[in-house]
């Protein structure tokens, strides 16, 4: 088989026959058994180091800039970083696209998925497990993990209590603090975490019809103001047009009308045919007359707020302003839906009929707010409408962009809790606990597994060890300052020791005060083991037996992490299954 492979590389690309400038295409590059090539392995290792160093609250940032002098992006977020990475190796592209897809669905745990996936591939190769045996074993071990995470007595799952906002804030804060690019101080990240929870709670409707529809949070970025000035308001903030800057505000119920069609005076949709206009006929004036007619009706009906998705003819604008209306044009399609929700108005697109009275909506009142250099029109909802605005302030643009991204992620993660009201212990504790559980379990079910999978017991145990080591190595990635990662041998939580801590401190129980998730306090009785060192397997004790037990302060999204785990293992399996690569290098 090996001998016949070079002939395959002789197959050339078909030169394109349709383009006028024919260039002979260069032949495809074929790689047989890509995972056994040292170049591919080096690239995978490099990628793992790169992404691993971006993981966690103390991560090292990366600057991305291209070779033609484009803007420099500073980030540690997987979605931004992975999009920037291009590799000549399609295997890396495969991992990249899986992780990016996961992040777009769940908004979190992208780096976790990427590092775990790369680690699984690397460990399987290092231990010399056959690819197909590794794939089958990984699949079984994954089922073991997800089964454990769904169990009632799962040690790393915390039920979320919606009666108090504490665990929700912990969840939001973990997301915020895991992105060091935002450069937030401790009180700042606490503030942003609280704002994210507040915005989330405002978008959950109270009187929910079936099915529930969550509202919208509209983000308004403001540059150059301190982070602590960020705030959340119920209702909508729109950019105020200049003529309104002096407005003190409109009290009382304000009647509003929304137009989704253009009011710029263009022709209606008559078809594809031509229109010939003879001299002396002024179509523009005819249409404008019609528009002014609409304006007059709006005035007579007592409309105070006139909003158009597209452009409003200047003459009509002037006419309406003279009548004392607040006129806002070009709000764009993305703001139309929250506007409809907020005002309860029906968008109007017919210009030739009178505005039906049912189309009018209402806002409670309108006021002007100033944020730094920005002047915004604040529309207060008349009732409970599940629409809110979030003003985010930060010192410069890069940080502000990252903060916006982080808040979106926090919102996404919080919304996921509505479907699965749990969270997982953060700070690496879930990973070490899962690894301990899998190691213990796989020893016990090895005979059964080997008969089901059709591989030898040694292979299965090697693959299980690779799996556990990969999980632990993700936890170890959280530490970037030269410290050591250890686990305790009762609950299998993850602890980080500063680099100056010695063996004696460890024995005395004074080295680390709290475990990664903050649920356990260190005490003298505990036995310790360094991560990635040999230790006897044990079954992790449930958290309820621990004393003293504290509220975990670091929580990860349950849905996002479980999905990331699945995606990582499935992608690793796929990478291990690739036997041949054909690359079009044109």
């Amino acid at each position: 088989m090996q001998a016949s492979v070079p002939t395959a590389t002789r197959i050339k690309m078909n030169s394109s026959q349709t383009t006028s400038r024919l260039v002979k295409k260069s032949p495809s590059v074929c790689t047989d058994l890509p995972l056994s090539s040292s170049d591919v392995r080096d690239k995978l290792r490099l990628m793992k180091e790169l992404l691993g160093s971006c993981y966690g609250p103390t991560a090292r940032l990366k600057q991305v800039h291209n070779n033609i002098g484009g803007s420099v992006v500073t980030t540690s977020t997987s979605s931004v970083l992975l999009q920037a990475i291009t590799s000549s190796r399609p295997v890396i592209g495969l991992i990249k696209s899986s992780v990016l897809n996961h992040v777009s669905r769940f908004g979190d745990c992208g780096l976790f998925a990427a590092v775990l996936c790369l680690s699984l591939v690397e460990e399987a190769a290092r231990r010399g497990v056959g690819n197909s045996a590794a794939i089958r074993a990984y699949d079984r071990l994954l089922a073991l993990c997800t089964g454990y995470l769904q169990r009632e007595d799962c040690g790393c799952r915390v039920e979320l209590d919606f009666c108090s906002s504490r665990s929700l804030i912990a969840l939001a804060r973990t997301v915020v603090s895991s992105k060091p690019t935002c450069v937030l101080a401790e009180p700042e990240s606490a503030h942003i975490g609280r704002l994210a929870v507040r915005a989330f709670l405002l978008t959950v409707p109270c009187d929910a019809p079936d099915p529930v529809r969550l509202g919208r949070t509209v983000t308004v970025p403001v540059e150059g103001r301190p982070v602590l000035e960020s705030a959340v308001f119920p209702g909508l903030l729109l950019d105020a047009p200049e003529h309104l800057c002096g407005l003190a505000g409109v009290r009382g119920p304000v009647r509003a009308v929304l137009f989704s069609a253009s009011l710029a005076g263009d022709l209606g949709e008559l078809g594809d045919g031509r229109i010939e206009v003879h001299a002396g006929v002024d179509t523009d004036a005819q249409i404008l007359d019609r528009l002014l007619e609409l304006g007059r009706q709006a005035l007579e009906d007592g409309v105070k707020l006139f909003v158009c998705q597209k452009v409003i003819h200047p003459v009509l604008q002037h006419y309406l302003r003279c009548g004392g209306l607040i006129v806002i044009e070009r709000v764009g399609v993305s703001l139309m839906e929250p506007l409809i929700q907020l005002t309860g108005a029906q968008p109007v697109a017919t210009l030739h009929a009178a505005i039906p009275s049912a189309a009018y909506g209402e806002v409670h009142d309108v006021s002007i707010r100033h944020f730094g250099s920005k002047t915004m029109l604040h529309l207060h909802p008349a009732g409970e409408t599940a629409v809110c605005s979030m003003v985010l302030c930060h010192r410069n643009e890069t940080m502000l962009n990252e903060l916006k991204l982080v808040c979106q992620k926090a919102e996404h993660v919080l919304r996921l809790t509505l479907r699965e009201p749990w969270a997982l212990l953060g700070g690496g504790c879930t990973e070490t606990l899962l690894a301990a559980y899998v190691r213990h379990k796989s020893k016990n079910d090895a005979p059964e597994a080997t008969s089901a999978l059709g591989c030898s017991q040694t292979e299965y145990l090697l693959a299980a060890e690779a799996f556990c080591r990969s999980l632990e190595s993700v936890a170890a990635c959280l530490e970037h300052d030269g410290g050591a990662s250890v686990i305790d041998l009762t609950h299998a939580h993850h602890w980080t020791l500063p680099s100056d801590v010695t063996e004696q401190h460890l024995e005395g129980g004074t080295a680390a005060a709290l475990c990664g998730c903050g649920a356990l306090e260190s005490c003298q009785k505990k036995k310790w083991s360094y991560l990635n060192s040999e230790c006897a397997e044990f079954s992790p004790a449930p958290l309820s037996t621990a004393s003293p037990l504290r509220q975990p302060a670091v929580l990860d999204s349950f849905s996002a992490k479980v999905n990331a785990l699945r995606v990582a293992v499935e992608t690793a399996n796929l990478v291990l299954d690739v036997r041949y690569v054909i690359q079009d290098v044109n």
Partner: protein
Amino acid sequence: MERLHLEHVLQSVSALESIILRSFGPEGGQVLFTRDTGRVMLSRSGERILTALHLEHPLARMVVECVWKHSTITGDGSKTFVLLLASLLRMIRATAAKEPHMSRLHNSTAAAAEAATARHLADRLLEFALTELDGLIALNVLPHGSRVSLDDITAKTPPEPSFQTLLLSFFHTRLGNVHCEFFRDLMCELLSRWMGKTGQPSSSFRFIDNNFPALHTQVSGLPAVSSRLIEGHVIHRDFATPWPQQNRRPVKAVVFSGYLQPRLLAAGDVLELGGEESVTEDASVVRFSSWTERSLESVIATLQSFGVSVLLCALKQSSAALALAAQAGMGLVECVSDEEMSLFAQLSGVTPVPDSWAVHPEHIATLTFCKPLILGAHRYVHLDFQDAEERLKVKPCSLVICGPGEEQTDQYARAFQAAIRMLLTAWEPVDKTEISTLDVKETFISNKCTSLPTDAISGESACTSCSMHPHQKCVIEPGCVIPAGGTFEFLLHHALHQYDRSCSVSVSISAFVPVSHILANALLSVPRQIYSHNRKRFLQAQTRVMALAPQQSHILGARLRQTDGPPEDGKQSARSCRKDSAALTLLDLGLESVSCKYHLVLAVVQCLTSLLRVNKVLRTHTVLHTTSHKLLSARLESPEDVDKDESP
């Protein structure tokens, strides 16, 4: 100009083979492609791998064309196709090189003589395959197979050999080791919903195959185990109007193929404003646009009077139409694709309204619900039909296929469609004219064979009559399967050898001897590759299958072709095949469809013949910047590419 030698043909086919081999068999893996656009593609399907190659050599392209044609019909066997083709070519080359009497033809070179012999052999092989192969399979392979029933598709532990095992083996070849069981169960669930209580299974398979794009939704970013079936029908578009929270049930829906707001001016029409004869107060453009708006309002009013609350439109509608529909509390979906429109029409039983002001009660479909559905990053429209179960005898459902990346999702979706095609081939209905022969043959082929000697004899004579008619399409009854892992190849190999021997004994046509011999030996290359990682297993498998092949029944079968055998012999052979099939099902090898295999062998031989009929490749050069017309016309006169004379 390039003269084609047998060597060249073999070389290009071998190159294809070497790529295919990486994903062949139980130890095979995936092949990863990157396009010049940077898109990554992943596949274990031979057809996809080959078609993605963009080959330059015309012969290789011809082979890929043949593989593509074959696998779009049967959905399976593209890798085996290339393997078998390469193996046949090698056998033919070896035979042609040895044949001395051919080289004295004319005074040509040795190479030309070799080519002539090869071509001759290929022609005879095709003739043999067209006339004798079906009979041989019916006689020697089918008794070891068994018929799979479609009655217990969703049973958890169905009796072996089952439909589930057949699907599982298929997914194994397409998706590797993981997720096979999961996708098999999903597929069984899907089929059981779409298979009517009455009617041919093949018509259900064909329906799913034809409507597959509209029947499934791909979602990336989720693990494969999140794939599922959902009730009803998914339209891959979102509501263009804010979705009304309606509690009214049932929901009434109308499908439009045109614009709701009338288009006053068709392309080419001219509207004259302010001409001499029509200078009146009303002759403004406003009048026309207000007319179209008024007629739109009346359309909406008509729809409201019918109680319609959902509008599905093929085209993008004007903003006035959207706003009026929203004001009337209707949900409007625009830009619905043709496939989805046609599926909706089939399932709901209503036709699209071509003209917006001619809405009649028969255009109104009744739905149990219609609501937005979020799948992955997209929002779609999810609806279900009222009384579809009584009307169509099926439970409409839609398939959601999930995968971590687009590549995998796409791969899973393709595996599903290929599985449907494979089933379609396996359950291909037999022509009406053949039914009579088949009724008799059932006693012989399936497990239910009676030991009545007369039946067995008539069955055999039916076989004989089949092999007499070269144009008989298929003698394999729907749903016949055989254990996988090379069983078919071993049995056919054995049968061909037996046939070979009996022919040389009874009929002294020496011309037939090498042909069946070549095919027999070429067939063995397939199981050899399946067990390539372990030679011992190959021999084990061969012995196991061969032990089951009854020696005398084949001789008997071959003899029966010439003379009617005594009744006792028929009885004996019938009994022996029952025992064998029971023994064969004990082997844990999975299952494959006999009909697919038969089509495969036939297609390979056809491809081989057309390959060997080519003798020269003319490489023409396209002129890039034509300076002289004369040169161009001269080029045009020369033949295009290759003189491909496709075999019939």
